[in-house]
C-alpha cells in the first residue's frame, strides 16, 4: 500500500490515468469493473430473495410456491447425480433429445447441402426455391411445433422433422453462399480441361465449401436444438423439452429454473467445448478462413450497426436463439 502511494506520489500527475492511482487501495478496488462484475451474482441473489418475499406478501399466497436459490441448487445437484422424481433422469432425457437432434441434423445437412449446391450452381434452381427457403428461414419454431405435433403425434418423428425444418434453411443459404464464393478461375480452368462435373464438385467445390459447411452445421445444431425443445414441449412424451414441461405442469418453479439452467449450460458446452475446438482444429491449415464471411439476404436478420464488425453468424445465432 505504501509502496503504491510513494510510487504514485513520485510519478508526475500528467495523464488523467495516473491521477486515479493516488486513490487509496480500498477505493480503487471498489471502483474496479472487475469487482462490479463479481458483485453481480450476489446482487441477483439478493434481488431474488427480496422479490420472493415481496411477491409472496403482496399476493398473499404461500411463498413455497416460489423457489429460492438454494432449492434450485439442490434440484440441480439431485438431477446431476441422477436422483429425480421425473420419469427419466437428466442423462436419459438429454440422451433421447440428442439422438433426435443427431438424426435431424444429419438429414438437414445432407438434403440442405444438395439443395444449396444446386441453388448455387444454377440460377433457375435458385429462383425456383429462393422465396420458399426465405419463408422457412423466418418461420418460428413454435409454428412447426404445433403443426407437426398434430400430424405426427407423440413420438420420434415429429421432433426429428422439427429439427430438419428449423435447421435446413440455414444449411441451404450458407452452402449456396459457399458455392457462389468458390474461386471462379479454378472452376473455369477445370471446365476448360474437360474435368467431369462430379470430379469438379469433389476437388474444386468441396474444399472451398468446407468453412461454409461448418458454419451451416453450427446453425443447424443450435437452431435445431431450440426447435426440438419446443416441439417436445407441445407434442412429446419424453426428452428434454418434455421434462421441462413436466416440471412446469407440476408447478415446481425450482425445477423449471433448474432445467432452464441446464439448457443454458448445455448450449454453452456445445458451443465452447465441442464446436469451437473442432473449428479451430479443422481450420488450422487455413487461418484466414477460420471465420468465413457468410453473407446472406436473410429475411429474419435486420441489418443493424451494432455487431457489424462481427461475423454475421453471431447475429443470426442471437436472433434465432430467441425463438
Amino acid at each position, binding site marked *: 500500500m505504501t509502496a503504491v502511494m510513494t510510487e504514485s506520489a513520485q510519478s508526475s500527475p500528467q495523464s488523467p490515468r495516473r491521477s486515479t492511482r493516488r486513490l487509496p487501495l480500498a477505493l480503487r478496488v471498489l471502483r474496479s469493473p472487475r469487482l462490479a462484475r463479481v458483485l*453481480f451474482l450476489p446482487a441477483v441473489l439478493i434481488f431474488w430473495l427480496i422479490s420472493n418475499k415481496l411477491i409472496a406478501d403482496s399476493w398473499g399466497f404461500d411463498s413455497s410456491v416460489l423457489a429460492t436459490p438454494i432449492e434450485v441448487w439442490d434440484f440441480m445437484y439431485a438431477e446431476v447425480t441422477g436422483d429425480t422424481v421425473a420419469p427419466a433422469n437428466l442423462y436419459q432425457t438429454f440422451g433421447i433429445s440428442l439422438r433426435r437432434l443427431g438424426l435431424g441434423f444429419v438429414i438437414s445437412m445432407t438434403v440442405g447441402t444438395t439443395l444449396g449446391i444446386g441453388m448455387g450452381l444454377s440460377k433457375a434452381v435458385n429462383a425456383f426455391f429462393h422465396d420458399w427457403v426465405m419463408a422457412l428461414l423466418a418461420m418460428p419454431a413454435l409454428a412447426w411445433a404445433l403443426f407437426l405435433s398434430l*400430424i405426427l403425434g407423440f413420438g420420434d418423428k415429429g421432433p426429428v422433422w422439427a429439427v430438419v425444418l428449423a435447421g435446413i434453411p440455414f444449411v441451404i443459404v450458407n452452402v449456396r453462399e459457399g458455392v457462389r464464393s468458390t474461386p471462379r478461375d479454378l472452376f473455369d480452368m477445370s471446365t476448360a480441361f474437360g474435368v467431369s462435373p462430379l470430379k469438379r464438385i469433389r476437388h474444386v467445390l468441396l474444399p472451398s465449401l468446407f468453412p461454409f459447411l461448418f458454419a451451416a452445421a453450427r446453425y443447424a445444431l443450435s437452431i435445431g436444438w431450440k426447435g426440438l425443445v419446443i416441439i417436445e414441449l407441445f407434442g412429446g412424451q419424453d426428452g428434454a423439452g418434455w421434462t421441462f414441461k413436466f416440471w412446469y405442469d407440476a408447478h415446481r*418453479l425450482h425445477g423449471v429454473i433448474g432445467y432452464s439452467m441446464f439448457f443454458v449450460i448445455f448450449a454453452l458446452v456445445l458451443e465452447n467445448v465441442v464446436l469451437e475446438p473442432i473449428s479451430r482444429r479443422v481450420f488450422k491449415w487455413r487461418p484466414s478462413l477460420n471465420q468465413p464471411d457468410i453473407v446472406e439476404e436473410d429475411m429474419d436478420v435486420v441489418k443493424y450497426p451494432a455487431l457489424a464488425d462481427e461475423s454475421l453468424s453471431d447475429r443470426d445465432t442471437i436472433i434465432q436463439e430467441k425463438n
Partner: protein
Amino acid sequence: MRVTEEELVKAARRKDLTVRWVSRILGYIVVLGTWEWASGRVLEENLLPGPTRVVQTAIELFNKGKIFSAFEATLTRIVLGVAVAFLVGAALGILTQNRWFAGFFKDAITIGLTSPGLIWVLITALVFGNRWYGPLSAIVLTTFALVTVNVAEGIGTLPKDTIDMAKAFKVGVVRRNRHIVIPHLAPFLFTGFRFSFSIGWKVTVLTEIFTASSGIGFEMRIAQILFRQDEVLTWILLFFVFALFFEKVVLQAIENRFFRWRKEIAST
C-alpha cells in the same frame, strides 16, 4: 445482319430474366400444388389442409370477427412489451457508459442475449400466473439485451471530439445528451427496436400460449387442442405474413424516411 455486342448482352440478360421468373413462378406452382395435392391423398385432409382450405378458414374466421380481436390483443402486448424492453435496454446501454456499471451488467447482457425466450416464458408464467405483467416481463427479459448491445455499441462510437468540445465550453449534461449523444445514437436505437420487434413477436405468441385468454397464441393453442389443423395453419400463416410485412415493409420505410438526412445509414 450484324449483331452488335451490346445487343448480344441485352439478349442474354433478357433470357436470364425470363429463366429466373419462369422458374420462380414454377416454384410457387409446384410447392402450392404439391401441398394442395398432398392434402387428402398423402395425409388426411384434417391433418394437412390444403392452401384453398386455409384461405377459406381465414375468411370464415374473419367473418366471425375473431381475427380482429385476436390481432388487437396480441399487438397491444407486443407494443407494450417492446416499448418497455426498449426503455430498459436503452437505460442499461446508457448506464454502461460508466465502466463500473459496464462490469456489473456484463453478465446480465450476455445472459439476456443467449437465453431463449421459452425459458423466460415458463418461469414468468409460474411466478406471475395470468397477471398481465407476466407475459410483459417475459418479453422484456428476452429482448432488452438486444437494445442494450446496440446502444452500447453506439456509445462506443460517439464523436469524442464533439463531446470534449462541449465539455470545454461548459455545455450542461442535459443539453450535451440532447444535442450530441441522442442524435448520434438514433440509428442504433432504431435498429435495436427493429431487432427486438423481430424477436418480440415470436415470444409474445409463445407467452399467449401459456398465460393468456386472448390473442393469436391463445387461438393457436385452442385450435391445436381441439385438433383443428386448418385453424392452426391459418393463425400461423396470418401472423407470419403480418409480422414479415410490418418488419420488412413498414419499419424499413419508416427508417428510410427517418434517416434520409444521413445517406450512409438510409442506404443500408
